[in-house]
């Protein structure tokens, strides 16, 4: 077993190798390095602190159990992120089964008038730091429906392709494209409203 100091200074691949042979301290170090990142991804999708914490914990347990399956094709945090994303999607499916989702279904099939979607023009915002803009985008994301927020998170943050998103969400590529378009349109509109309210644009 490596000494305590070795864990904190070890490179990620070395920690993964140690963890693969059952070294819990190496795994603890990996948790310490990536716990916030995994929590952020869970929170981005779920928008619920308690659920995001629970799903993050579950993701780490699953990661420990499946470490043998990690061969380094993607980076370790990317692999972890996929696990927590899958758990979030499972949770959303479970929630969907438990309630009627008719309002969101209506939003997507309101006919040809709504299908002609205008995307708001947003000019580059002067005098707004990247952090401030992020906060406004985050607030706008929170206002999207689960389906639309999820597709944005999977495409923009998880960097999946249309095909991969369709597989994960159990839907067609056409539906993914349609949801993504609607989500962006809505985001642009919400963002413009916020920026106008804050006097940052006219």
């Amino acid at each position, binding site marked *: 077993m490596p000494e305590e100091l070795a864990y904190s200074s070890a490179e990620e691949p070395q920690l993964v190798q140690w963890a693969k042979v059952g070294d*819990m301290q190496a795994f*603890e170090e990996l*948790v*310490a390095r990536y*716990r*916030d990142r995994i*929590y*952020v*991804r869970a*929170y*981005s999708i779920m928008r619920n*602190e308690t659920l995001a*914490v629970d799903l*993050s*914990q*579950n993701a*780490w*347990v699953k990661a*420990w*159990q499946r470490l043998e399956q990690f061969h380094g094709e993607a980076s370790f945090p990317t692999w972890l992120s996929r696990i927590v994303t899958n758990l979030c999607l499972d949770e959303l499916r479970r929630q969907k089964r438990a309630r009627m989702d008719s309002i969101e279904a209506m939003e997507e099939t309101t006919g*040809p008038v709504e*299908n*002609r*979607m205008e*995307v*708001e*023009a*947003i*000019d*580059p915002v002067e005098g707004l730091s*990247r952090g401030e*803009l*992020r*906060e406004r*985008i*985050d607030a706008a994301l929170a206002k999207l429906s689960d389906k639309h927020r999820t597709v*944005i*998170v999977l*495409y*923009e*943050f998880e960097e999946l*392709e*249309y095909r991969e998103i369709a597989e994960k969400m159990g839907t067609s590529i*056409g539906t993914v*494209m*349609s949801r*993504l*378009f609607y989500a*962006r349109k809505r*985001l*642009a509109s919400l*963002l413009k409203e916020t920026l106008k309210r804050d006097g940052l644009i006219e």
Partner: protein
Amino acid sequence: MNENEIQLKVQALVDGELTGREAEELLSRLESDAGLKALHTRLTVVRGLMADAELPRTLPESGDFHWSQISKAIEREERQAKHMARPASGANWLRRWVLPLAGIACLVLVLSLQQTTMPDLEILLGSDHELELSIEDLDVMTFNTGDDNMSVVWLDYSIDLQQDGIDLWLD
């Protein structure tokens, strides 16, 4: 292709999901269609805003507590997995195999003792003999021949099913 489909194609172009001839055709169409060109620009701006837009957050519980929850869950799941995979315990093994085998051994012993004690019951059997027992509803007849080392047991059990059926139905 309707307007909505074209919009989705423009989006696919912005996302780099449209390639080859389809992409070239759409690009040339954008040059002559101001509306589509504007949509392309707006979608590109939204994409640009979203790049690296995920707000950093900190886990709302201490790292130590988070780890303790994870390690407890791992231990719990490993215990359960071991329990499922574990071979039968000593007590289970005894219950599953030894007791039935002991029961069979006892039965064999009793039967063999019965055979050896038969002469004590003063039933003297010749080399060829017949035994017959008859009680209500059951007739048993055995025939033993010493020459051929053969025993024949004849069981005749008859029951009036129809009568029983009627009784049951009447009950």
